[in-house]
């Protein structure tokens, strides 16, 4: 595109670091790669449109959750006729939301803790040791990501039922079975990302720990884990999100007492009347913990992807 190239200012200005934050300075003396006006407009238009698309459901969720039922039963309106917090009080009574919430917290929390601990061990082995079968291990673990969930849902369902019948160990319909299932969902990605993170921790630090008399596990917990803490946090957030949002296995493997939010939330819409304002309020309430956690820690996720996986 020669017309665009022609419009960039001639490279007479002295080169300055583009990141050095010197906005006023950059305004006076434009850096050689200062964005042309057409680019700025394209960027403005695109990003505005995209923001609208992304936030539209969030706005609907928020505004509808503050509307009285009559507002959400009739034609849609952008603004509530009156603001009310009633939906937020009613959601706890329409369905046993507290129980679903507790179940989801227990399941997602336990799955996260177990998955992170196991992934730390595995990632340490992958990043620090050369051993036979290493490639096979990584390929196998990553390829499980590719399996259609539906393929092992049926057998796993049968295994849990049969193990339960044979040993009395309640896996089907219990939180334990769900925890076991979910923690393997986040495991491959966690191992992959943590291995990358660990590889960026210099080996000399491990060796220094050996000299100080630490064993391999000592080096792992005293040196590598603290150094890779941001990555571990990011992986934990990912694992929690995975477990918190899963629908397929939760819909098959839970019963009334162990039902999690992902299935329980549909309770508002199976009745004759759909309480859309309550559905939206409940959706918002169950989203806040994960969204807040994710947005607070997304920096580390990007850093982790940059450090390890993407290279």
């Amino acid at each position, binding site marked *: 595109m020669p017309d665009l190239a022609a419009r960039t200012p001639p490279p007479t200005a002295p080169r300055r670091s583009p990141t050095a934050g010197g906005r006023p300075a950059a305004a006076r003396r434009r850096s050689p790669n200062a964005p042309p006006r057409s680019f700025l407009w394209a960027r403005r238009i695109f990003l505005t449109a995209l923001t609208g698309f992304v936030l539209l459901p969030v706005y609907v969720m928020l505004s509808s959750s503050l509307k009285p039922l009559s507002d959400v039963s009739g034609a849609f309106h952008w603004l509530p006729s009156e603001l009310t917090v009633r939906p937020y009080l009613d959601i706890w009574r329409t369905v046993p939301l507290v129980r679903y919430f507790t179940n989801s917290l227990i399941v997602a929390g336990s799955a996260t803790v177990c998955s992170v601990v196991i992934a730390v061990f595995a990632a340490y082995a992958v990043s620090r040791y050369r051993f036979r079968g290493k490639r096979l291990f990584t390929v196998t673990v990553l390829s499980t990501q590719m399996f259609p*969930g539906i393929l092992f849902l049926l057998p796993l369902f049968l295994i849990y039922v049969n193990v339960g019948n044979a040993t009395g160990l309640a896996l089907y319909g219990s939180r334990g079975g769900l925890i076991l299932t979910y923690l393997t969902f986040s495991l491959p990605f966690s191992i992959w990302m943590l291995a990358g993170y660990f590889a960026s921790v210099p080996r000399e630090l491990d060796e220094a720990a050996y000299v100080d008399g630490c064993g391999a596990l000592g080096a792992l917990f005293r040196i590598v884990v603290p150094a890779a803490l941001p990555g571990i946090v990011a992986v934990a957030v990912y694992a929690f999100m995975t477990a918190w949002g899963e629908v397929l296995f939760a819909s098959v493997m839970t019963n009334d007492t162990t039902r999690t939010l992902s299935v329980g939330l549909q309770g508002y819409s199976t009745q004759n009347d759909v309480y859309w304002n309550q559905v939206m309020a409940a959706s918002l309430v169950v989203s806040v913990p994960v969204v807040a956690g994710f947005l607070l820690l997304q920096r580390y996720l990007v850093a982790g992807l940059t450090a390890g996986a993407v290279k």
Partner: protein
Amino acid sequence: MRRLPVRLRRAGLPYLLLLPALLLELLVHLVPMVIGVTMSFKELTHLFLGNWGAAPWKALGNYRISVDVNAPVGAALLHSFWVTCVFSVLAVGLCWLLGTAAAVFLQEDFRGRGLLRAVFLTPYALPVYAAVITWAFMFQRDNGLVNHVLHDQLRLTDGRPFWLLGDNSFYALLVVAVWKTWPFAFLVVMAALQNIPRDLYEAAALDGAGRLRQLRRITLPSLRPVNQVLVLVLFLWTFNDFNTPYVLFGKAAPEAADLLSVHIYQASFATWNFGTGSAMSVLLLLFLLVVTAGYLLATSRGRKRADA
């Protein structure tokens, strides 16, 4: 002799560290998969649920039913397969396009960049069911936002169309899936862009290259290896997606948006015929294996040629 255990321990340590991960993956993924393949050869109906080992062998019977396109079961499966293919290709293309464009536009620092980044990642952070239920509300015929805007405000449609029933459901599903998945492409491309040295752009600008030329000559080539993996992962996820259609449409997806996962789920749990359901899952897995292998072969060869 006394040193042997130590050496053994040394050599065994990595395996010991991997053991928990390996055992769990075996238990939850690999063993069920093998069992799933076995099940696909059996006549596994509700009669044999408690003791599925006793179910009679059916050899390739389940497969024959699944691929017989002249009978209703096979015809429905084939239709579902085509819907899923078209849906996946469109969704992956759109997700990649949006994600890359957004990441490129956010590559340079400007005021509000951090905020936009957080906003763009919100759909990815929202639990699937919460987000998709909201979309389901927006797509309601009588009290949804979409018809309010299209019909009441813009007057683009004659009546109020149904979005979650009939042919329109395909587009509804596509919009929701793209909305939900594009931030992942954005996240990955954004991370990859941080590995491109700034000097390259500076040098290109000094040589008089404009933004589009920089995009074509520096950004896109640098993204090639990442794109190779990203497109594949996006494809596999969309192709296997269950959550979005399941929450959007409930248990019975409309024909136009009948994705394979939901279709197989329906075929298995509605009739409790797990044998045929497993055969369909195995066919799905085989298809994905072939596509993945072909894709990796094609893209790797293309990459080597480009490097040469």
